[in-house]
């Protein structure tokens, strides 16, 4: 079960900063990563009489104190509606909110603020593209390509689009390790392909896909690519300019920010040409009953009062992540994953699902004769939070012929001691139900 790279130097999606990790001061760097744990107040609590072991980070991450504080401060001192008041508070709130847009732009290395659209999360970002870009470019007989390891949010919007237009959804198969079959992908790319939508890091399997290469292949045929980056941003630096993707979707809550906020990055040339997704306040320049003139980018896609407080919290989360050495984070998480993989897979009757060479810190597993739901309940009684079920990726479960998995997903604030607790928890599951 050695399905991950050990030294990190061959990870295609890693930036130079990540590669620098292999420096001699690594121990100190890793200690600094681990030292961040105390920034997360929730992690101090006890559950069922045991110290909480939170291993459900792929579902949502915990929030550092500065994120919580930033939102409280916003509501205590700045709360006001944005873009529409001349008064002091409205100005202040608008500035704070718009400053977050610039933070996101730099966080993703987008070319312009105009390419950063605030949405509710990854799901809404993908729906926006499927509805606005999709309906204008996809017709009967066309094809949309996705992979066999997509989250439902990167399947269903395209399925709806295909049903409505008469286009076909094509799925790139994956191998037994949970890796995309590149030859199959190339075979599927044809003149009928109008869109490719791919997950950067799989939430169910942990696989890190070679999206840059896949984007290049699509572009050779003039096909735009949307990347679902929900699970990528918590683990690695993402550079949309370097990837050259057409769209990139993320959720704040997976990257230590609050729920209810996310971002759609889109290349300006696409966003400019796309019709609005929703109508309402803020997305217009002028309205008469005869005609409405839409606002400029990115506001054209931001109808209604947004989640201002959430946006402010997201900004604080980005500041927090920017202060971390993401290379060290990647190395630390790789070490955790390696330790967990070794110790969990050596338990008799346990099988790891998702053994790709390039993996983020997600460990899905099944135990012979024991349903994931029972695993989850028994681990919970030990204070250990894991996700059990199909992880909103039912086709992945079907691919592996299993109803569900238990999934432990790690963040940089998790420790080897917590993995030891997970290992004893799994032994206990087998003791109770085996």
């Amino acid at each position, binding site marked *: 079960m050695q399905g991950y790279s050990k030294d990190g130097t061959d990870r295609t999606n890693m930036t130079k900063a990540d590669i620098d990790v292999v420096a001699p001061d690594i121990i100190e760097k890793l200690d600094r990563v681990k030292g961040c744990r105390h920034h997360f107040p929730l992690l101090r609590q006890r559950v*069922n009489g045991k110290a909480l072991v939170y291993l459900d980070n792929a579902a949502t991450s915990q929030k550092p104190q500065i994120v919580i504080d930033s939102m409280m401060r916003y509501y205590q001192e700045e709360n006001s509606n944005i873009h529409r008041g001349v008064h002091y508070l409205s100005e202040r709130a608008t500035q704070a909110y718009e400053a977050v847009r610039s933070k996101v732009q730099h966080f993703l290395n987008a070319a312009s603020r105009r390419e950063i659209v605030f949405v509710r999360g990854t799901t809404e970002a993908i729906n926006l593209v499927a509805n606005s870009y999709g309906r204008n470019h996809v017709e009967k007989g066309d094809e949309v390509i996705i992979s066999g390891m997509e989250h439902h949010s990167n399947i269903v919007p395209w399925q709806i689009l295909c049903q409505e237009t008469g286009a076909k959804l094509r799925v790139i198969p994956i191998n037994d390790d949970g890796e995309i079959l590149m030859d199959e992908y190339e075979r599927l790319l044809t003149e009928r392909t109008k869109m490719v939508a791919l997950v950067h890091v799989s939430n169910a399997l942990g696989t890190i896909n070679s999206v840059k290469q896949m984007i290049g292949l699509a572009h050779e045929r003039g096909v735009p690519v949307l990347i679902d980056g929900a699970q990528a941003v918590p683990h690695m630096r993402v550079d949309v300019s370097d990837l050259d993707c057409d769209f990139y979707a993320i959720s704040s809550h997976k990257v230590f920010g609050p729920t209810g906020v996310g971002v759609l990055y889109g290349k300006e040339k696409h966003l400019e040409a796309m019709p609005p997704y929703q109508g309402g306040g803020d997305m217009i320049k002028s309205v008469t009953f005869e005609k409405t003139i839409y606002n400029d980018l990115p506001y054209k896609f931001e109808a209604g009062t947004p989640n201002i407080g959430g946006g402010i919290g997201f900004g604080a989360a980005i500041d927090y992540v920017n202060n971390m050495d993401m290379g060290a984070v990647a190395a630390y998480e790789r070490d955790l994953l390696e330790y967990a993989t070794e110790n969990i897979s050596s338990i008799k009757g346990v099988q790891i699902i998702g053994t790709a060479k390039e993996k983020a810190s997600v460990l899905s597993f099944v135990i012979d004769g*024991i*349903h*994931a*739901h*029972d695993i989850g*309940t*028994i681990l919970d*009684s030990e204070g250990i939070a894991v996700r*059990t*079920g*199909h992880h909103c990726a039912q086709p992945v*479960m079907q691919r592996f012929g299993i*109803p*569900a998995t238990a999934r432990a997903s790690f963040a940089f604030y998790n420790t080897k001691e917590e993995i030891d607790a997970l290992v004893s928890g799994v032994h206990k599951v087998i003791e*109770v*139900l085996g």
Partner: protein
Amino acid sequence: MPALRELYQEIILDHNKSPRNYRKIEDANRKVEGYNPLCGDHYTVYVKYENDVIKDISFDGAGCAISKASGSVMTSMLKGKTREEAEQLFAEFHKLVKGELNPEENMDHLGRLAAFSGVSEFPARVKCASLAWHTMYAALNNKETTVSTE
């Protein structure tokens, strides 16, 4: 731990390991699939229902220990019962797993069902425990051919 022992009582562990009536009934006149989309539990309940009596009842499929044990205990209790009796037991079972029925005071008629009282401490598992029952209910009432907990 006490709560966990209450949930996974010996009866439940036993019925999970060796489920009773875990088979198809070839000449069943009622057959309904039950599905819990949240966790993927999936069972089929077969009933031979004649003259308002459950002549035979069985189930097969896959799911967690709680749902499988529940199907096993349910089928072993319902054989020979009328529809009204079966529905009466279902109503009691439902109250039991939701913590609305004291098992001690109702031991006489609950019988082995009392083993499911621990489920009430685990709200996320109530659906697991009730899946087979909902499916049986649909079968007796000649409802849809598939029921879902969602």
